[in-house]
């Protein structure tokens, strides 16, 4: 693996006596799609929250493009180039579709508040650039988030389109690394298939590296370069999908000890 974009180094996190993550090593390379799997409560979303700066690690380090980002404020992490989506959708529902994307695009603009109030040249130029970037990001989703929807409020979108808009919004931060938290949750098989293609396209056309949490094993199988399995905050397996899926520790984490007992009717 060449120089990793993201590197978790013996990362641990405790809440009081509860150890949420322990000694976790994990890397995401340039233009690599890594899937994070594991049963509910394994600590997958916690990993995202540590990377994005919601939690400060108890020990260990988070490095992004070679630089330690552990303990940085979430908005600084985002501005360095890490975008994320949320397991439970968290759109700005009362804002329009394009405004949702624009709000995420301002991270690196420089105009000060009075400049935007008075519509001074720099603020106006940035406003045009931000809008252009937002339109570019939305057009990546083709017909699904087509132009006529841009001025509609986000709450008018269907569930699947809300999930797409969340990805668009994360993409608007111009990330090098995208963290997708269950992008196919609640979708039907056709929509799930589309999400799988979308994830691959994000890497191929946008050049981003992706760390994705997903429960749908078809999605995991068809788009990941590598799979990492977690249980109780510990990495239990890593490698190609087939190897990880068949790994005894993974099977045990999902189904319990001696899964053969199930087929015996016991």
């Amino acid at each position, binding site marked *: 693996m060449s120089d990793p974009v993201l590197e978790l180094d013996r990362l641990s996190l405790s809440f009081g006596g509860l150890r949420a993550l322990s000694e976790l090593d994990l890397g995401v390379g340039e233009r690599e799609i890594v899937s994070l799997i594991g049963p509910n409560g394994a600590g997958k979303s916690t990993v995202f929250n540590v990377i994005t700066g919601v939690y400060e690690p108890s020990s260990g380090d988070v490095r992004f493009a070679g630089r330690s980002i552990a303990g940085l404020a979430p908005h600084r992490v*985002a501005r360095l180039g890490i975008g994320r989506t949320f397991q439970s959708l968290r759109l700005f529902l009362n804002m329009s579709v394009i405004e949702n994307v624009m709000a995420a695009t301002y991270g690196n603009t420089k105009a000060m508040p009075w400049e935007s109030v008075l519509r001074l040249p720099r603020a106006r130029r940035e406003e045009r650039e931000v809008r252009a970037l937002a339109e570019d990001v939305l057009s990546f989703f083709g017909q699904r988030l087509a132009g006529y929807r841009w001025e509609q409020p986000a709450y008018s979108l269907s569930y699947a389109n809300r999930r797409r808009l969340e990805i668009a919004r994360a993409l608007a931060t111009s990330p090098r690394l995208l963290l997708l938290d269950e992008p196919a949750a609640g979708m039907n098989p056709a929509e799930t298939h589309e999400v799988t293609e979308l994830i691959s396209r994000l890497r191929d056309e946008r050049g981003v590296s992706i760390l994705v949490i997903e429960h749908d094993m078809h999605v995991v199988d068809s788009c990941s370069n590598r799979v990492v399995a977690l249980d109780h905050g510990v990495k239990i397996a890593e490698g190609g999908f087939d190897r990880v899926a068949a790994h005894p520790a993974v099977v045990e984490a999902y189904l319990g000890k001696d899964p053969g007992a199930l087929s015996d009717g016991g």
Partner: protein
Amino acid sequence: MAFFFQELVNGLTTGALYALVALGFSMVYGVLKLLNFAHGDLYMVGAYVGFFVIQWFGGATSLSIPVPLLLVIMFALAAGLVGGLGVAIERFAYRPLRDAPRIAPLITAIGISFFLESAALLLFGAQYRVYNTPDFINAHSGITIGSVTINSVQILVLVMGLILMVGLQQLVNWTKLGRQMRAVAADREAAEMLGVNVNFTIALTFFLGSALAGVAGVMAGLLFNQVTSTIGFIAGLKAFTAAVVGGIGSIPGAMLGGLLIGLAESFVTGYLSSTYSNLLVFGLLIAVMLVRPSGLLGQAQLQKV
């Protein structure tokens, strides 16, 4: 009929003033879901700032600078100082409690309100401070249409109020800061993880809201002449009513609510008696809450799926 229009003008003027205070109240509620009961006292501080500016430049009868310049200094200083005070209150009183249960910052807000009122009493005394506006702005100047007179101070308040409200509406709808404010109001954590500097955005919201209250305080001084440490309480209560009637968190709602309350007050005072004005204002609040609990322009809370 002339009487009606005269009361209409008076009502719009006080309404504009209430609307400016209500805007700050509503904006802060929008980003923090905090009922900032200290907001009315910021208006009181603004009124004092205006008074001391007049004193500084020689007093109402012997001003050492031209009146327009005086007005600019009064408004600018009140906006800046009260805006800064609002930012300081947020930084030291509300920010440490941002993740606490919502009752904690609410009680703190009431405490800050008492603190500001008592501090003003201690520093400036209990006596009424008087602007003596007629000594430097001719009370009979202005526009007269038929028998309806809009005096210069009323014109000033109406025009400034209109400009500030339109400006704020533009700011919130069409600029970087406005979109970030709305993003923070909708989902603070999500906004933060998308690169919005939440602390900065909240501080700016407090600055803008407080500065508007400061400006309204100077307007009140010019209109009603008298300033004392307790004027913030009832103004804050009316601004709160205006914000709730219009739909709390909604900027056009705060404007509409402020104007409605100003008009209601003015007509009741004119046609009945000033004794009943508060009765009607708060009666209006109850009536609107019964029919539209989310306020006239407020949106019903969206359910998250």
